[in-house]
């Protein structure tokens, strides 16, 4: 069958396949010139902080955390008894809480459109079908998460306190201060904050480095790495030190020193750095600065 199959159209098919492959191969080998240069998108400076916080960290290490809940708490609502076999608890449906104001006046059909301030309870919601209380438009409703009204009358809840989303807003156990800070207390300044100081330094140095990479062959390959130490007033504690230089070759060797000099000049022109003095310990020795030309 195989030998018979290789007659007639088969040869045509094979020849076609071979020709297409040859074409594909030729296309891959002789790609027409370098890829067309697309206009480079506008540059956005992005800084990735790769420091890991080995200690608990916070922007305000000594801050008192917020209390776990609002001052006035409504009594725990009785969960509506769910009939057995109604809904599998493994399928928690997000429950849309109607606004208390709307709920105070019992209306037959409150609009279930979620308001911007909607809160989601994590407790598994009983199926509305199984509810003893008649839900507004129970049968015709086709919505994924029908309105579920809390079992106790909303009037029982005075304004202010809420236990909604307890699991999210637990707060910190034992916190005393009355909403002094929204940050949890921690022992140290976090890597994000360090990164933001680095960002601040970058913002101040960068303008003095624009158009400053020396002209010459291959100077765009040069990288100068400087370490700087700062005084409390943002001035340099000592002249910047060259940690290293990269990308030096025969053609740009003459410019390497000039590159380093221009980098140091950019730092010097940026002083005094505007940084918050209370965090001096954090920024007095910053990560090294890598000066280079964009590629």
């Amino acid at each position, binding site marked *: 069958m195989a030998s018979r199959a290789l007659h007639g159209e088969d040869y045509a098919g094979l020849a076609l396949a071979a020709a297409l492959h040859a074409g594909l191969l030729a296309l891959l080998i002789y790609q027409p010139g370098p890829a067309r240069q697309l206009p480079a998108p506008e540059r956005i400076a992005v800084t*990735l902080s790769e420091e890991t916080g080995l200690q608990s960290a916070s922007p305000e290490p000594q801050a008192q955390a917020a209390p776990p809940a609002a001052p006035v708490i409504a009594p725990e609502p009785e969960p509506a008894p769910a009939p057995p076999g109604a809904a599998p608890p493994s399928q928690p449906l997000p429950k849309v809480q109607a606004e208390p104001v709307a709920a105070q006046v019992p209306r037959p059909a409150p609009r279930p459109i979620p308001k911007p301030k909607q809160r989601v309870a994590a407790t598994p919601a009983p199926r509305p079908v199984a509810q003893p209380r008649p839900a507004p438009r129970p049968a015709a409703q086709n919505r994924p998460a029908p309105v579920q009204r809390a079992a106790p009358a909303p009037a029982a809840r005075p304004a202010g306190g809420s236990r909604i989303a307890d699991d999210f807003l637990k707060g910190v156990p034992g916190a005393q201060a009355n909403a002094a800070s929204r940050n949890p207390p921690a022992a140290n300044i976090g890597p994000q904050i360090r990164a933001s100081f680095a960002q601040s330094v970058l913002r101040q140095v960068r303008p003095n480095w624009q158009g*400053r990479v020396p*002209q*010459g062959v291959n100077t765009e390959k040069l990288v100068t790495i400087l370490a700087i130490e700062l005084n409390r007033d943002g001035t340099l504690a000592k002249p910047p030190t060259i940690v290293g230089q990269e990308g030096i070759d025969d053609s740009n060797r003459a410019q390497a020193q000039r590159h380093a000099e221009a980098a140091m000049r950019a730092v010097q022109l940026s002083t005094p750095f505007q940084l918050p003095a209370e965090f001096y310990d954090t920024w007095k020795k910053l990560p090294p600065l*890598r*000066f*280079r030309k*964009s590629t």
Partner: protein
Amino acid sequence: MKFRLTILLTLLATPALAQQIPADPTSEAAIDVVDDSDWQDTSIAITDFATDADVPTATNAGTTAQLGRGLSRIIAGNLRNNGLFKPTGPDGLPQPSFGEVQAPSFGLWQGRSTEMLVQGSVRAVGGQIAVGCYLFDVALGQQLTGATWTVAPGDWRRAAHKCSDLVYSRLSGENPFFDSRIAYIAETGPKSRRIKRLAVMDSDGANHRFLTTGQAMALTPRYSPDYRSILYLSYLNGNPRIYVYDLATNSQRLVTATGNPTFAPRWSPDGRWILYSMATAGNTDIYRISAQGGASQRLTSSPGINIGGSFSPDSSKIVFESDRSGSQQVYVMNVDGSDQRRISFFGGRAATPEWSPRGDQIAFTHIAGNFRVAVMSPGGGTLRYLTDSWQDEAPSWAPNGRIIQFFRSERGSGKASLWQVDLTGRNERRLPTPADASDPAWGPIRP
């Protein structure tokens, strides 16, 4: 069945399309300061060179005060148009007193938003001229460099060139080149009866001088490394022959006595050897001879035209042009003629190679339609075009190996002029010459 076969074959080809995504090696936590702007020309203010006493001098510039203004004008002219600096002054700038030359009031200059400041002094000392030159970083308020020279009155322009070199070297990292001279061929007369004369001038076109009368056509001059003589090709008595022109005595001699045409002369970097090409019986080969004379040594022997030849800076290798492969291409050989190999594989033809004084590049004329000046690495890689015009040819290097001089012919009229371009190819500048000009050759930095 046959469909399955086709599909199988198609699938087999697809892995070739798999792409490789290069990993981006980002540095640890370093602050990445990126320069994504184009180069900004460094603004330099150049004030009149101040003098302690305005006295007459033996220079052609006048008194010391006039000399001071002349010096700063030359420096501003030198630093202009080379793509690195934006010089201002001396006109329209506050002029320092003699005492302020080394202690400028930086506040004043910071207000004028200039980055660098060049100030200098000029004094008449005996019959000589003493010139001081100082470069300041205005923003940082500190002196970057400074020097003083004492020159003969006739050489006062050299003091300005030396000051330009000081500033250029300090701010670019490159070796100096302004204090140098250029030999070239001045062309006058109609196209059919062109008169070509050997001429020399300073790097800025000043101190121009014709060396030959034009009775015999002159071509391809080359300054000796000590500036004492010039090698060139002359059609004296109708025979193209290489002569050594002695600048001190204004006399010339044949490099080698032969009845055959000789051409394309070059010096070795130390000035002890001369390369030339000689045509014998349809073949042209490259020869080497001592600058003092003596016997010639033939370096090439393959059939065809082997011509030109330019030493590497360490004098160990020679780059030359040969048509042994069928068209003009660039070859490299050892200085004794061994290990000849082709290095230009760029399509088209490649001619007139010249090794950079720094050794890192070879300049040549790439002929593919138009004539363009290009550079490549000594191994033959990375072709880079520096010019893009109808006919640019005969590149020759500035002493610092960073600027290339060539001549450009206009389409139609054929008028030729001297041009300079830096190694980035971005900064072209026409050199002023009194007549049309071709075949430029840059001498080394003056001793």
